């Protein structure tokens, strides 16, 4: 039987993987698309249309899109999850 892993470690690992993935897409996007427009982080901050700009754009956007719910997960786990849901 497989040994067991602590949940939080594992989930954070998954989160980091997905954020990295978004960064990689940003990086490759700058390679694949010729002459892209400069991205605007959160529709606000203008970033340079370079590999760096797209990596930051991808990673930060997805980091937030998934990070805010993840913070919710942490909160809910601490305060709500004590009461077991019926199944």
């Amino acid at each position, binding site marked *: 039987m497989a040994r067991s892993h*602590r949940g939080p470690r594992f*989930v954070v690992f998954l989160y980091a993987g997905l954020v990295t993935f978004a960064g990689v897409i940003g990086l*490759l996007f700058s390679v694949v698309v010729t002459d892209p427009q400069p991205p605007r982080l959160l529709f606000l901050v203008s970033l340079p249309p370079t590999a760096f700009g797209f990596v930051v754009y991808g990673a930060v956007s997805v980091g937030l899109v998934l990070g805010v719910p*993840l913070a919710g997960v942490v909160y809910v786990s601490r305060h709500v*999850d004590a009461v077991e*849901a*019926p199944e």
Partner: protein
Amino acid sequence: MAITGQIALTVLMGLFLVGVAAWLARVENWRSYTPVGGGTTGGETAYGSDEKPAGLIRWLTTVDHKDIGLLYGAFGITAFVVGGLMVMVMRLELFDPEMTLISNTYYNSLLTSHGITMLFLFGTPIIAAFANYFVPLLIGADDMAFPRINAIAFWLLPPGALLIWAGFLPIPEVIPAQTGWTMYTPLSAGVGSGNQANAGVDLMLLGLHLTGVSATMGAINFVTTIFTERGENVSWANLDIFSWTILTQSGLIIFAFPLLGSAIVMLLLDRNFGTAFFINGGSPILWQHLFWFFGHPEVYILVLPPMGLVSLILPRFSGRRLFGFKFVVYSTLAIGVLSFGVWAHHMFATGIDPRLRSSFMAVSLAIAIPSAVKTFNWITTMWNGRLRLTTPMLFCIGFVQNFIIGGVTGVFLASIPVDLILHDTYYVVGHFHYIVMGAITFAGMAGLYYWFPVFAGRMYQRRLGKIHFWLWLVGSNVTFLAMILLGYGGMPRRYATYLPQFATLHQVASLGALVMFVGGLIWVYNFVVSWLEGPRVEDADPWNLKDNGLRTNEWAWFERKRETALADGGEVDEADTE
């Protein structure tokens, strides 16, 4: 002359059918299958497995939900292999920009068939396999509410598959359809100078119609079963999550598939009898509305039960109950309802009324919320759990990962300005493959590995299971990420040839597909060898679910079955390997 020939043939076929019926009536005593007592005695089937006939006859005549589940499974896996081989040929062709291995038209045929095979002959049936085998066990029912309708529903599938694949068989003058799985008119109506007026397209449409009838019959059966056949201690409040998703999915099928059937009949009429629904002055866009009114619910028909599988299996290996069970059920129902309100997001680029477009955009964004709720609950379940990374668990986690990527890329497509740029590019192909392969098929694998001990009575080789998972996780992400990037670069979908600048990404995608192919070979090898000579399951609780109080009804059934089998002289062998 020709007429008499045909009459003779018809009479001959009639006699043949009567002969078959007579033969079946002789070899089979149908009455023996009637469940006595109307199924209120609980837990007992009226016919023991020793009453089943042996060999092939058993499988041709069975009305036992477990046998039918296995038939669905065998059928679905066969279709998966066929569809997989088709796509491997396509990916080989796409290894270089020119037309090399196969002709462009043959590529189109494979493309069409791959999509239809995977969605209608693998996706829906493999879900029906799990549902048939396990829903009655999970809800404590004797069998399905209508066992014979259950058998009929399955037996419509093989002829359906033959019709769908007919174009590839050596039949003179019949060529495979090249319409794409969406069968857009006017191409699919056979107009113009193309070759899609060929009978192969008609046969495919008829085959699709059969699979739709099959799915509808199955769905009615599941709804009735879950409503009326639940055991005494199974109430709505403690109905398991997988049965909930099957119930919702069946509802969707009942509303969506008959519509597809009607649209197909209209198309057949247009093709063969000169009606004017979609051509001859009718509207080709009408087809798209009808098709996607079915088509978008279809994607949820395919994804809801896999979500149910993950919701069932993931907590078992997190050592705790599913977090927020109620909300998972509510979001299942919400998705079921909303899924009928988003179809036109597939038609943003067709020039429909912009006001309509934006309302569909709004609903499409809204439907992401219940999906996000589920993901939230899976993650929270893991967060407070202790994870055991068995093969089924790995596939569940792979599901969550790929579903997030597929979902996020989908939300972008739902935004009209983005869609107008990415529509009909490889981005769309990448998006939905993250879901259909990366998520749905992964969940199917999780189910197959999780319940392997139940239906095979033996254990698979764990190492090979893990290798399979990692090859698929890497392969699917390499392939579908390359597709997303191809889409950004402007590569249109559905082409056998392409501009040289796309070569590298296409080669990467083909390489990823090859990695998945190797994973698939290992999976088939593992399942076949383990089924035949894997170590017998010695314990009715192979996943140690009892420790955490997480055992569900089907494992309790498994334990009873093993005990009774031992008590009456150890027929485990027979019952388990067949």
